[in-house]
């Protein structure tokens, strides 16, 4: 498709490669190096979409991220919502359409890869324009570790969109040489297509690198599409440039109305004439260059309209040479046109008011209201801004520690000045690092900037009406009229005005509209703009895809899966797993045709009648050593541990200072000065930290050391009346008789030369032995036990069966039968609370009034009277209702069901519950609402199987 708007030559595109793409269903062609916007303009298309509220046609209004209106939806190669046509690099097969307001998400998952990379540098330079390149060169030449990030496809910044010359050659030559020199420095990280989007504390900058987007469908699958760089910089140089600012006037939103600098960029960088007949409206010198360059490129420039009473002499002459009429002291008051601007209404400005307007035909209206330095990152670093009246813009008002601003971002608007400022700031960054400035060649000489006139600050051209077509924020369709309503409504803070008008809340976050809104609001309120200020600049500088921030923490890597040394065996045996914290634990081992209930009934019965084996390796284990080990445990457990004999085991409970149970487990005394503390699976890390915290911060005088040995020791409870036979068979040298090896004691032995520890601990009430072995040998020992157990029908069981067996004995699971509001007494464990010890953590809280309340919830058992219903865990409990019906809410609740199972042993379902004054209610019948009905349940003690504990010795 031939394009009449492409210049015959020039630009930084590769005219030898043609790229086909589709926009709004229509086929177009462009070249490598184009953006979607430049390719569309080259085809004569300005109009992109209609606006969100008013449905007015909108086009491409700038050449990069500051464009407030050129939003598109990518469809191919993969749907992506709301990107700016000006920032989408063209590739073959791109399909997109204009976006009237809301983007569309793909309905299939995104299979692209994303990742993150950490970097540490002495100096981070944001922006590879003249100032940024100069700063980076200075830092690099000093041998500093430098990162240079720039959001565009290639370095150069504003130079890419100009015909500036350095040392008499195109500035691009100097840019190229600078890039080559930087590449030669081993300590320089130079990233293009990389946007620094957030600046945080201590020199932390986040930057998004678009690595393969420009390759379209040809992007390699194994590479991350986008990468988030997490850069720690000792010094940061923000050389992010400046955004041109429009002037607001009536009907200023039509396609074909564009920032002057943008049109100049399209011409020089992409070889595209943004129109054929142009009017240029400016308040400063910079737009003249656009007028002159476009005229030289064959665009008929019908007029330059300069709001200032006088036009700059140099530019007057340049325009005269090209037959461009210049109307100084004039403004554009409005436009005509439909899909595209057709005429600009130009009127003389007499003491601030426009006179009679005269239409000037054009298909391109270039506007320049001055420049806003890109102070976003500086402002994110909480740097304060001041309004510079001469420049008509907000500038950094202070020096920040470690964050410096250079070039046009600091208000330096000429090329020579930017180069010098960049070098100066680069050297200052080095100085702050106590690195001397390097010997450097002289900076390249820019052509003398013509003597010019200062800019005029003009926010808007009064439209004589209500301003309802004078657009301030094009994306939000917000106008001067909206600002006037906000002021009239009593709003004084720009934060209120922003929310009232929604100005600055759209995709561009107010890059062009924010300062305009402040300026116009100040006028409306009759106060200086310093008083209104700006709204807060927040990260990100430009939008970032969710998936890019998720990085590789997706799917399998979203959160670590912790597994035991026997995990693969469980998998091979078809175990169904349960997530317990980050651990994967076998929940049950279904056999063919079994559901969970069947499998668990089988596992329970087999264990109570024969022998079962559990992988208990996830239990937390802490090695406690030192002369004061017992003292520490006495202070942290509610019960007495110092009296525990070497070779013995004791169950213990830990409370927080608030007296609520936080964990429980058994403690083995390995030596006078050594204990092995077992915690719950979920509590392992928390309890080690808890113990360390007390030792380190409260009782540093205690001679005790803690070490986590959770993974060191695999733990296999072998449980059931036949467990003695199995243990005896595997560990022939151990006398497993009750007499020689009583309950709550442990013994060391070896197996094949490997140390093994056996402990008579029971979490089921049955005769049981816990086998501890180094995880190196875990699988071998596990298989030995299973092998030896085969004659006895040993049955591997999971957490579900473990829960049933312990519940039948009334043993609580911390976190299931407790919720952080339960004391040991509530659990019926007063026996585990020492009366002897003067103090232990939590003791004092037991005597608070609320702890004396007889109606505290207490752990009891529940037996559904119908012997059938398995009460859903979490069910609430209410008083028995004779009529079997619930009264109208609110219905007083007595407590809730914490654990509930079908018991093979009892031949009926049962539950554990926390019930107000529960122990006093034993024998009562209460109701549990299940579905629509009230299920009568009998309150019992919490121990339902073998209350006298006859089985634990087999």
């Amino acid at each position, binding site marked *: 498709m031939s394009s009449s708007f492409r210049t015959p030559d020039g630009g930084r595109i590769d005219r030898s490669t043609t790229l086909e793409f589709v926009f709004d269903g229509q086929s177009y062609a462009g070249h490598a190096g184009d953006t979607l916007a430049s390719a569309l303009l080259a085809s004569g298309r300005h109009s992109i979409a209609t606006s969100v509220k008013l449905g007015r046609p909108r086009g491409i209004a700038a050449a990069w991220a500051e464009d407030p209106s050129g939003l598109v939806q990518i469809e191919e190669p993969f749907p992506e919502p709301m990107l700016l046509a000006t920032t989408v690099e063209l590739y073959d097969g791109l399909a997109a359409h204009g976006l009237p*307001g*809301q*983007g569309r998400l793909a309905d299939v998952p995104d299979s692209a890869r994303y990742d993150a990379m950490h970097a540490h540098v002495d100096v981070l330079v944001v922006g590879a324009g003249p100032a940024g390149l100069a700063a980076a060169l200075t830092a690099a030449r000093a041998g500093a570790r430098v990162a240079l990030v720039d959001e565009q496809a290639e370095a150069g910044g504003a130079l890419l969109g100009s015909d500036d010359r350095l040392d008499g050659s195109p500035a691009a030559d100097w840019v190229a040489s600078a890039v080559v020199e930087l590449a030669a420095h081993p300590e320089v990280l130079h990233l293009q297509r990389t946007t620094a989007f957030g600046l945080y504390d201590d020199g932390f900058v986040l930057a998004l690198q678009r690595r393969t987007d420009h390759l379209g469908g040809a992007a390699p699958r194994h590479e991350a599409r986008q990468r988030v760089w997490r850069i720690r910089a000792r010094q940061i140089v923000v050389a992010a440039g400046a955004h041109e600012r429009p002037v607001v006037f009536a009907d200023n939103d039509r396609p074909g109305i564009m920032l002057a600098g943008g049109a100049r960029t399209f011409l020089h960088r992409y070889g595209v004439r943004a129109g054929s007949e142009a009017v240029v409206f400016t308040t400063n010198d910079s737009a003249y260059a656009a007028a002159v360059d476009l005229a030289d490129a064959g665009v008929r420039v019908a007029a330059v309209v300069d709001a200032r009473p006088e036009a700059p002499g140099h530019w007057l002459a340049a325009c005269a040479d090209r037959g461009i009429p210049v109307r100084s002291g004039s403004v554009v008051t409005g436009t005509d046109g439909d899909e595209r601007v057709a005429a600009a209404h130009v009127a003389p400005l007499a003491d601030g008011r426009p006179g009679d307007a005269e239409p000037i035909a054009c298909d391109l209206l270039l506007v320049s209201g001055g420049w806003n330095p890109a102070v976003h990152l500086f402002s994110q670093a909480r740097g304060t801004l001041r309004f510079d009246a001469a420049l008509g813009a907000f500038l950094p008002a202070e020096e920040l520690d470690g964050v410096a601003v250079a070039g046009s971002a600091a208000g330096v608007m000429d090329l020579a000045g930017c180069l010098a400022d960049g070098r100066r700031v680069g050297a200052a960054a080095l100085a702050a690092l106590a690195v001397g400035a390097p010997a450097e060649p002289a900076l390249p000489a820019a052509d003398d900037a013509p003597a010019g006139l200062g800019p005029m600050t003009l926010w808007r051209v009064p439209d004589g009406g209500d301003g309802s077509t004078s657009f301030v924020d094009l994306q939000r369709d917000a106008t001067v009229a909206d600002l006037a309503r906000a002021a009239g409504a009593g709003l004084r803070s720009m934060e209120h005005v922003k929310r009232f008008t929604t100005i600055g809340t759209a995709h561009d976050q107010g890059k062009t509209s924010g300062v305009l809104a402040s300026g116009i609001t100040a006028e409306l309120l009759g106060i200086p703009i310093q008083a209104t200020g700006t709204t807060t600049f927040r990260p990100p500088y430009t939008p970032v895809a969710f*998936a890019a921030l998720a990085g590789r923490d997706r799917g399998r890597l979203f959160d670590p899966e912790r597994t035991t040394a026997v995990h693969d065996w469980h998998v091979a045996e078809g175990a169904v797993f*349960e997530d*317990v914290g980050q651990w994967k634990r076998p929940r049950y081992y279904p056999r063919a045709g079994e559901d969970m209930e069947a499998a668990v009934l089988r596992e329970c019965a087999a264990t109570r009648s024969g022998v079962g084996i559990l992988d208990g390796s996830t239990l937390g284990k802490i090695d406690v050593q030192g002369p004061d080990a017992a003292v520490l445990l006495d202070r942290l457990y509610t019960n007495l541990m110092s009296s525990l004999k070497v070779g013995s085991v004791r169950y213990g409970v830990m409370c927080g200072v608030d007296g609520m149970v936080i964990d429980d487990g058994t403690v083995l005394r390995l030596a006078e000065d050594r204990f092995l503390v077992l915690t719950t699976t979920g509590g392992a890390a928390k309890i080690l930290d808890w113990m360390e915290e007390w030792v380190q911060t409260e009782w540093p005088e205690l001679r005790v050391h803690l070490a986590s040995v959770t993974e060191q020791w695999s733990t296999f409870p072998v449980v059931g009346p036949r467990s003695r036979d199995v243990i005896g068979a595997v560990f022939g040298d151990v006398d497993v008789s009750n007499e020689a090896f009583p309950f709550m004691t442990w013994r060391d032995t070896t197996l094949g030369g490997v140390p093994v520890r056996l402990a008579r601990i029971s979490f089921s009430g049955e005769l049981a032995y816990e086998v501890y072995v180094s995880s190196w040998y875990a699988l071998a020992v596990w298989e030995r036990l299973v092998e030896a157990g085969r004659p006895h029908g040993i049955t591997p069981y999971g957490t579900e069966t473990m829960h049933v067996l312990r519940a039948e004995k009334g043993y609580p699971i911390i976190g299931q039968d407790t919720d952080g509001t339960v004391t040991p007494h509530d659990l019926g464990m007063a026996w585990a609370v020492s009366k002897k010890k003067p103090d232990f953590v939590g003791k004092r809280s037991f005597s608070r*009034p609320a702890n004396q309340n007889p109606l505290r919830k207490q752990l009891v058992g529940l037996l559904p009277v119908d012997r059938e219903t398995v009460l859903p865990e*979490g069910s*609430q409990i209410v008083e028995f209702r004779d009529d079997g019906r619930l009264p109208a809410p609110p219905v007083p609740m007595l407590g809730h069901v914490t654990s509930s199972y079908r018991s093979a042993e009892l031949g009926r379902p049962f539950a554990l519950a926390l019930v107000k004054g529960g122990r006093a209610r034993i024998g009562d019948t209460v109701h549990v609402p299940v579905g629509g009905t009230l299920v009568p349940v009998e309150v019992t003690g919490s121990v339902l199987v073998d209350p006298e504990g006859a089985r634990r010795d087999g």
Partner: protein
Amino acid sequence: MTGDITRPRTPGADLPDHPDFLWRNPEPKKSYDVVIVGGGGHGLATAHYLAKNHGITNVAVLEKGWLAGGNMARNTTIIRSNYLWDESSAIYEHSLKLWEGLEEDLGYPILFSQRGVLNLAHTLQDVRDSIRRVEANKLNGVDAEWVEPDEVRKICPIVNTSADIRYPVMGATYQPRAGIAKHDYVAWGFARRADEAGIDLIQDCEVTGFTTDGNRVTGVQTSRGTIAAGTVALCAAGHTSVLTDMLGFRVPVQSHPLQALVSELLEPVHPTVVMSNAVHVYVSQAHKGELVMGAGVDSYNGYGQRGAFHIIERQMAAAVELFPVFARAHLLRTWGGIVDTSPDASPIVGRTPYDNVYLNCGWGTGGFKATPGIGDAMAHTIAHGEPHPYVAPFALDRFVSGALVDEHGAAAVAH
């Protein structure tokens, strides 16, 4: 001006216009019957109900910055009442009932959208806690139900309910009457009504101290002069400790950063509100189409109204894990608020050591949804000099007696 308040707005919808006049910007008077410190949602709602329900209008609301510019402007606007404990569900359900009539009461299009809230369960313990909460809610007259994964998919088709993700969705609690509203509209609605009633809303007025006489506060010293006060209500959320330090008494709250974010405007994909405690994300799609999301609380105390970015990154990972279609949605803006958290994750409301000073703080992440309820209860408390029954259980002295209302464990999702 009132729009359809039961459904999310249509694609591409703009927001309804604000009224032509909101409030005066008066100079503070020398003296007021009631001085409310804090011009956020709670302070403004308290002012509204003082005027509406008790005819008390000689009132000033003092705001150190701009009205409703604190947490009210920074929250994720989730409204629900499905809390575990009787005391909590009572105040939040009272609030929800007021929400249901608030658009009419304020004559303001607050965009209250009862689109329902799903609290996902990812572990067996989540399921137990969820059912416990649902059953308690039912008995307390709060609409709540337990829904299985396939029903979750029906209610919110974009939730990843496949079994092979790291933390599969095992079900959820669902409160159909829960939803979202447009926070600025809510705050400005209260402010406009209070202003209409003659209550002075005084901005850029920072409290710098208090004048006391024994057990009474007689004056409030501010950056705009000292203001005599008959009764003082502290509604300063994250800055409460700064005020109580001036008054010389302590409250057990800690102020933490809490961050939130929005995406660009998107076609409707998310019809409800989804919260997941286990993977730490809560998200809704607001009226214009942007995804609004909140994260976990930053660990350290902070008044900076900003948090650490790793929290956002972790939240994005959770979002993409739970909602794969979000992959190429874009993070448009992040911000932070200051949440005042209490030891039992429940608010602290009522009397203070000063006879004429009432306290309202400690709402943590629950403040927005409580706005009308606590405004009403505070107004009642101030008018009667007696804590409203709804707030009585949340008195400061519960930390001495130990009678906490601990919403940590059981309320699972604490947002």
